[in-house]
């Protein structure tokens, strides 16, 4: 799923009592639930880091669900019931997006205005042209009934898998680097790796084509 853009910042006044809300889930003055806002990390009370302690995040998700879920607001007025649907939907999307490291990274990139390139649009990254060419030739041979190309296909697949593993390692490094330094250029590097990775996955899918 495409990373949602950060929510437009809401006026920080409570819809009910007009007091400042300090951007928390509930108004500190009247305790009314507020419309969801801010980014997914802050909504879950997490720093903008790419390394996440999953059990801890689950704990936060559960305890926030207990406070925001529509079931808890069943006996409240319509406005608050509607707000709880919005808040829970936002919380659920936040948890779903941050749970998976890839969507988490894409979301963080989007927060920083960096978009991962779509491999279907931007084509093959230059450094992978050789692999693409090799694979394409092999696949064509197999399609034409040349069974001797089978070992080459197996080889090509292994190579792509090796490159994928390398991409995953590069991502891990990039994640750690971002968490340590917070440098924008790290995010740009991560974006490049994500593009590369998406392309490799597509190649691997393509290489699964059975000979006719």
């Amino acid at each position, binding site marked *: 799923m495409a990373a949602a853009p950060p929510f437009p910042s809401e006026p920080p006044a409570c819809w009910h009592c007009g007091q400042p809300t300090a951007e928390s889930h509930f108004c500190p003055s009247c305790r009314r639930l507020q419309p969801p806002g801010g980014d997914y990390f802050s909504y879950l009370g997490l720093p903008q880091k790419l390394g996440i302690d999953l059990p801890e995040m689950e704990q936060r998700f559960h305890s926030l669900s207990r406070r925001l*879920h529509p*079931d808890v607001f069943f*006996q409240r007025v319509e406005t608050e019931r509607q707000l709880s649907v919005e808040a829970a939907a936002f919380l*659920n999307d936040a948890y779903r997006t941050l749970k998976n490291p890839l969507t988490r990274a894409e979301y963080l990139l989007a927060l920083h205005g960096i978009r991962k390139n779509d491999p279907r649009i931007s084509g093959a990254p230059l450094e992978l042209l050789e692999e693409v060419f090799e694979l394409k030739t092999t696949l064509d041979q197999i399609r034409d009934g040349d069974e001797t190309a089978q070992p080459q296909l197996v080889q090509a697949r292994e190579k792509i898998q090796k490159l994928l593993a390398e991409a995953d390692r590069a991502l891990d490094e990039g994640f750690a680097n971002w968490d340590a330094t917070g440098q924008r250029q790290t995010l740009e590097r991560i974006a490049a790796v994500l593009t590369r990775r998406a392309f490799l996955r597509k190649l691997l899918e393509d290489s699964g084509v059975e000979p006719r």
Partner: protein
Amino acid sequence: MSDLRQSEILLGIDLGTTNSLAASMEGARPAIIPDAGGDKLVPSVVALTPQGELVAGRPAADLLLSTPERVVYSVKRLLGKGSAEVAEDLRLFPFRVVEGSGSVIRIRLGDRVFTPPEISAQVLRRLKANAEAHFGSPVNQAVVTVPAYFNHAQRQATKDAGRIAGLEVVRLLNEPTAAALAYGLDRRKQGIVAVYDLGGGTFDISILKLHEGIFEVLSTNGDTHLGGDDIDSLLTHLALEDILRQWGEDLSRHAVAVAALRLAVIRAKHALSTMPETTIRFTYHDRHYARELSRPRFEQLAAGLIERSLEPCRQAILDAGIDIRQIEEVVLVGGSTRIPLVREAVEILFQRKPHTELNPEEVVGLGAAVEAGILAGIRPDLLLLDVTSLSLGIETLGGVVSKLIHRNSTIPAAVTEVFTTAVDGQRNVLIHVVQGEREMAADNRSLASFDLKDIPPQPAGKPRIEVRFLIDANGILNVTARDLGSCREQSVEVKPSYGLTDAEVEAMIAESIDQAESDFCRRLLVEARVDADAILAATEKAMGQEAWFEITAEERREIQAALNQLRLAYQAEEHLLVRRHIDMLNQAALGLAERMMNSAVKAALQGKSIEEV
């Protein structure tokens, strides 16, 4: 308002394919509400009596053998569907679908026609009445369960049924999730559990994580066309073929015979859950059919259907992102899980003995009551986090689906998309929303078309209409739109692909009130006629007695005239008229009755009993 909601009784209802039941919280625990006769289960059967009264439950089921053409069962299979989608059901079930039924099916019952939500509403009305009698106060709200794999239209149809029955469906709850709530009530249960729910007509599998009172659904899958009904149909057809061979007669066109045979095979199916063999016995017009059926033969027949439940289980495990060995327990739900082969299949797939301590027919209804308890604030320790079972997408160029909300996303779930125009000055944008997992829109279930109307004329690509798709906690889709240029609410016209429009539901609610009135009038007429029968019979009997000749000729003429008039009034469909003439006959016969009483006293004094007079 909040006080009002609080003081009301909130029912939990399991609206099943075969049976339904209502439950509510008694303190912190759920309890089933029995009907006046002590029955917990209400058969999901609706009938139009020969007197023209709509009945549901046991009285309706009792009519199945005498007037099957006025009875309908398993209507849940048709909820939220168009006639093109139910061809298979129509082959196996004696539904009398009216020709020309389009996006909403219409079923004939005697001389009247009903939609599936109206039929389901009768069952709900019956449960509501049982509960009202039980509590001695009105009940207007309920949590109603649906198969997890029900799509938007089927859910909407269930809600419509509630509205028609005068019940606000405050929450639609997935059946396996409801079962998990009842199972995990005492909070001792922790870890990952699977709920395998094979009911009368539908199959669901859900994988949940139970953690300190939170029930988080990880994944769900299923088949809305798989259940015990299918086994019954299979056995019925087998027996019909047998009978054709043995008697040389095709009974499949005789509704009464098929209905009786179906009951016979269901009895045999039930027997085989506890015994190694049984006999299907069936009598029709003094001819007897008997067929030995062993459990192995039965299993051979049912194996294919049971096998069909296993692939959704594997998919659900995969989607949950867990290893099969992480599943702590498999909970069995639905009457069909009493079949030993089902239990074996589940045990082999999940590599553990399933949990069978819960009553598979009651656990879903109990769970619905628990959810009602959560909503009412009685069980603040529990919380359910459910998912949407089907992906939601929109049709894009070339008929390809662009997925907006993926299946197994925790609900509520929302996503916003921005749409624009393709032609200069374009005023409308049509968005086709589908539900399902396939790549092409045509292969998925069409939900609705949303027409963004009255877009201010601008160059192509200039307008920016933000559309928000929200799946609420009921699994129902809500769509709103906003013009980003003017920041105004954009009007959206919804054209549901299947199901009733709001106006149609409103009309049905109005009609059902009229209907309830006419049902009531009909009952008054029936009662008046019963009384008329009694007085006519008594008067006719008295005419031959001694007392008849003791009264004056004038009296005799008056009685005769009143008698004839009552006979005439009897034919009119008007209970007040019948009542008036009963009174007139009573009045005219007063003298005669006095004489008879005197004779009776005399007779009593002579040592005769009153009955002999």
